[in-house]
């Protein structure tokens, strides 16, 4: 590679003297008015380095410029919760779970990079979210992943899925973080826009919470972790602001490659540094690298900051200062350390073979100043970079097709006319990629490491033990349904929350807090913006009713090819707490003779259902109704059932309805069930409707009276529908399917 002659260094002095020099603001993704504003803020034209910083930090990805006005509601409408220790706005929220313990958790997308390079894209997605959690002062203890791909039989899915799964496994396994759950969904709408959302959860004592701020003039700024290379330069702005259909290969940003081993060292080293109380502020390097970390640290603190780029350890000595500032090299962190603690800090880094360098210090001014070769190349108010990015009130409009879509109800779809056809429908459902056994994926993830995994895939939620002595633990579920959200984004977002909430309660944990990842198409399309605003409103309203505040999350826009956006896909993670993990409730039927109860009401609801999709390729009508008070009640009963030992198993009902839930509980335990269809409802509706607010539980005979009394006292509909027994799922008077046949159908559904 021949390097072209480098242009002279664009210093602050040079920029002041050359106001007319043309600048590539448009190529960097800035709009003209944004560029004008930067000039106003600075009172001159920006230097190249400043332009680079503003362009990445003001990009959609970093500034949330299209989404901010809608996300505000999560704070404004947040229900009061004593459990919130740190709210929205930090790297991740922190929730009190009792006994002096706190947890922090967050889900983040890495969609576009995972399409370009599935393995590295997904791997670095895990790496990024883990560093976010670490930066809060927590030890990361588990990960989850929510994945969406194009049709399972599409050739590109065979490229993307195995790479994504291997990348998530490769990175997470190597960090020693158990993968405790997630979801995998296939739909042609994700063909060119797969969704890879990764979640991490971390644990700390209350007193260990750390925040990203730089305070105390004279304190040192230390960059530690990997050397800085040319990875993903421009990635933050270009990746988040363009679709790929017009991307020439040369326009694709260079891919970031992860080094999970380096990250593992970074984790252990950082935790040791926390234990000795050596930092006053800490920030991970995510998108926009050094630009982001320094401006955010300085902006959140009281003073200014001075950084010397010459001190940044480089992997590639040809990098320009602009590139150093924009590089997204992985596995780096930035800490603010009091001068007398620097030696100890560096010694711990040395112990872990982690490169650490003092690159600057906190000043008593109010500017972020960056020097290179002794010359000042950046002199900006840090807030203007990190927090005062543009805010857009993008036009939004309910799409013209929405009414038509909702009017095309599933009522017109032909239902199986005989018991035998119903049986075939069941097998088709069980053997579909969305509903089938995901072990081909989840067997590539270590679920045992750390020795605290109480529940993992295929349970309703993952559960980990936090305190070995007391049995205190947490449960987490991650759910979304883009088909429901397409039919009605407001309700769809609420259904995602309701499902996740229900999944957590089904294992016996009390839902406490929420994280979300909002995956949508282009914000420049008013229809997409409408979907987005509706989803936010729906989620914020529902969180208020359920008493579970949103603690943090992530937005991914521009998930579209040409004019076609993905289904609006809000993915919601719910965190719950359980006093004693010994009391957890599994999905699997366990005891012959236990009674199967269906909790909740079943209506004829097939809009957006798995059946409508599978049997007819249909998406239309309205999604199932949401009744949040009912969800709360159901959760109370499920939690009480677990706490008081009244139930053997519990499984929430979602896609595929009762039929799918029964199959999973049977296969999980290797025991069948005999089920009676109540005479008030058609067998087909009973089996496949996707009404929300429902779960099945198995109740030991000895507990039946106590359990039904409880349901009655709380006015929760509970219908005894069968008994755990035999080696088939026997829908009496209709059909029976052997477990063997079910297992075969399910096991062959997801194989790549």
């Amino acid at each position: 590679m021949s390097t072209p002659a480098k242009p002279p260094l664009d210093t602050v002095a040079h920029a002041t003297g050359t106001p007319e020099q043309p600048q590539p603001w448009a190529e960097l993704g800035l709009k003209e008015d944004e560029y004008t504003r930067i000039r106003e803020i600075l009172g001159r034209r920006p230097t190249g380095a400043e332009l680079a910083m503003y362009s990445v930090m003001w990009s959609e990805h970093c500034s949330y410029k299209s989404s901010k006005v809608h996300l505000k509601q999560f704070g404004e409408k947040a229900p009061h919760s004593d459990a919130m220790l740190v709210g929205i706005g930090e790297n991740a929220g922190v929730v009190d779970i009792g006994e002096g313990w706190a947890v922090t958790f967050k889900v983040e997308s890495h969609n576009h990079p995972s399409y370009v390079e599935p393995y590295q894209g997904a791997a670095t997605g895990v790496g990024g979210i883990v560093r976010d959690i670490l930066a809060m002062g927590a030890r990361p203890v588990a990960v989850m992943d929510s994945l969406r791909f194009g049709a399972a039989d599409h050739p590109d899915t065979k490229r993307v899925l195995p790479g994504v799964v291997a990348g998530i496994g490769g990175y997470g396994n190597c960090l020693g973080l158990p993968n405790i759950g997630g979801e995998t969904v296939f739909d042609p709408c994700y063909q060119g826009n797969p969704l890879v959302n990764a979640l991490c959860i971390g644990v700390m004592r209350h007193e260990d919470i750390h925040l990203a701020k730089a305070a105390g003039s004279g304190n040192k700024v230390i960059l530690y972790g990997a050397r800085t290379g040319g990875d993903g330069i421009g990635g933050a702005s270009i990746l988040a602001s363009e679709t790929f259909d017009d991307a020439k290969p040369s326009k694709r940003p260079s891919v970031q490659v992860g080094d999970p081993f380096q990250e593992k060292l970074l984790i252990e080293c950082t935790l040791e540094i926390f234990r000795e109380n050596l930092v006053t502020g800490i920030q991970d390097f995510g998108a926009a690298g050094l630009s982001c970390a320094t401006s955010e640290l300085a902006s959140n603190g009281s003073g200014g900051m001075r950084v010397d780029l010459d001190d940044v350890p480089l992997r590639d000595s040809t990098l320009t200062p602009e590139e150093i500032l924009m590089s997204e090299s992985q596995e780096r962190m930035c800490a603010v350390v009091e001068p007398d603690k620097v030696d100890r800090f560096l010694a711990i880094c040395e112990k872990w073979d982690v490169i650490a360098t003092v690159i600057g210090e906190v000043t008593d001014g109010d500017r972020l100043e960056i020097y290179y070769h002794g010359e000042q190349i950046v002199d900006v108010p840090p807030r203007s970079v990190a927090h005062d990015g543009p805010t857009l009130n993008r036009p939004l409009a309910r799409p013209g097709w929405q009414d038509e879509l909702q009017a095309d109800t599933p009522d017109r779809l032909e239902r199986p006319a005989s018991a035998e056809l119903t049986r075939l429908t069941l097998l088709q459902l069980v053997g579909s990629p969305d509903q089938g056994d995901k072990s081909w994926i989840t067997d590539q993830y270590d679920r045992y490491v750390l020795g605290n995994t109480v529940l993992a895939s295929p349970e309703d939620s993952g559960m980990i033990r936090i305190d070995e002595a007391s049995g205190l633990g947490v449960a987490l579920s991650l759910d979304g349904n883009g088909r429901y959200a397409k039919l009605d984004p407001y309700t769809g977002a609420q259904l995602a929350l309701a499902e996740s909430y229900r999944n957590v309660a089904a294992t016996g944990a009390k839902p406490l807090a929420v994280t979300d990842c909002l995956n949508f198409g282009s914000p420049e399309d008013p229809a997409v913006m409408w979907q987005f605003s509706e989803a936010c409103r729906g989620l914020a309203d529902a969180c208020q009713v359920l008493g579970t505040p949103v603690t943090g999350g992530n937005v991914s826009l521009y998930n579209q090819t040409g004019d076609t956006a993905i289904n609006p896909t809000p993915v919601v993670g719910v965190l719950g707490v359980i006093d004693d993990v010994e009391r957890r409730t599994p999905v699997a039927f366990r005891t012959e003779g236990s009674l199967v109860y269906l909790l909740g009401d079943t209506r004829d609801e097939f809009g957006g259902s798995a059946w409508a999709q599978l049997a007819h390729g249909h998406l239309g009508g309205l999604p199932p109704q949401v009744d949040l008070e009912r969800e709360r009640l159901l959760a109370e009963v499920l939690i009480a059932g677990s706490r008081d030992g009244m139930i053997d198993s519990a499984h929430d009902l979602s896609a595929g309805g009762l039929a799918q839930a029964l199959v999973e509980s049977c296969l999980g335990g290797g025991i069948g069930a005999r089920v009676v269809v109540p005479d008030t409802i058609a067998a087909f509706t009973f089996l496949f409707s996707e009404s929300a607010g429902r779960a099945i539980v198995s109740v030991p005979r000895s507990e039946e009276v106590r359990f039904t009394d409880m349901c009655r006292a709380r006015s929760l509909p509970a219908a005894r529908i069968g008994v755990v027994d035999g080696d088939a799922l026997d829908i009496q008077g209709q059909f029976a399917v052997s477990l063997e046949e079910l297992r075969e159908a399910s096991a062959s559904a997801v194989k790549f």
Partner: protein
Amino acid sequence: MTARVGVVTFPGSLDDGDARRAVRLAGGEPVALWHRDTDLHQVDAVVLPGGFSYGDYLRCGAIARFSPIMENIIAGAREGMPVLGICNGFQILCESHLLPGALTRNDHLHFVCRDQKLRIENAGTAWTSDYEAGQEITVPLKNGEGGYVADERTLDELEAEGRVVARYLELNPNGSRRDIAGISNAAGNVVGLMPHPEHAVEPLTGPTTEGLGFFTSILKRLVTAR
């Protein structure tokens, strides 16, 4: 007083905490050893835990084998100190030539995490005496490079000398020659094992508690030896 069992932490070790927990639950005193340590802190036995030491770059275990602490462990093992290598630890033992053969990429090329059925073939080693020969146990298995290979002569020798300690049952998860899950050295004090007994020591978090036997075996041995 109970026996002191050292568990080495290399950079990239992951199951070191689990191994220490298993030693504790078996009644022993776990001692954390650091890869740069130049002495063994008077431990009576050593566990090399699972994980990705040094990122498993180059080859699994290849870099860890040259850690400062390995010098003492190799010398100790040659003099009869009991050493158990689990997964990455097994790979390190092979790279150190304390055990013959090598572990190669799984034949299906994927990382695999599953509950694996095993048969304990040799209940005479320092780490398996609490089992019955022929006993079947289920413990987690998780690896990307767990296929055991050695030349035919070595394999025959291992079989003939009863040095195949555990064998995969029902399904060979990684293409190991002769379904080998674990082997020992000739003296029986050094055992390498691909599956993870330390993840099967509590009913709450493991598929069974059938992994505990490896740790109770060694504690009994050490306490009687005193």
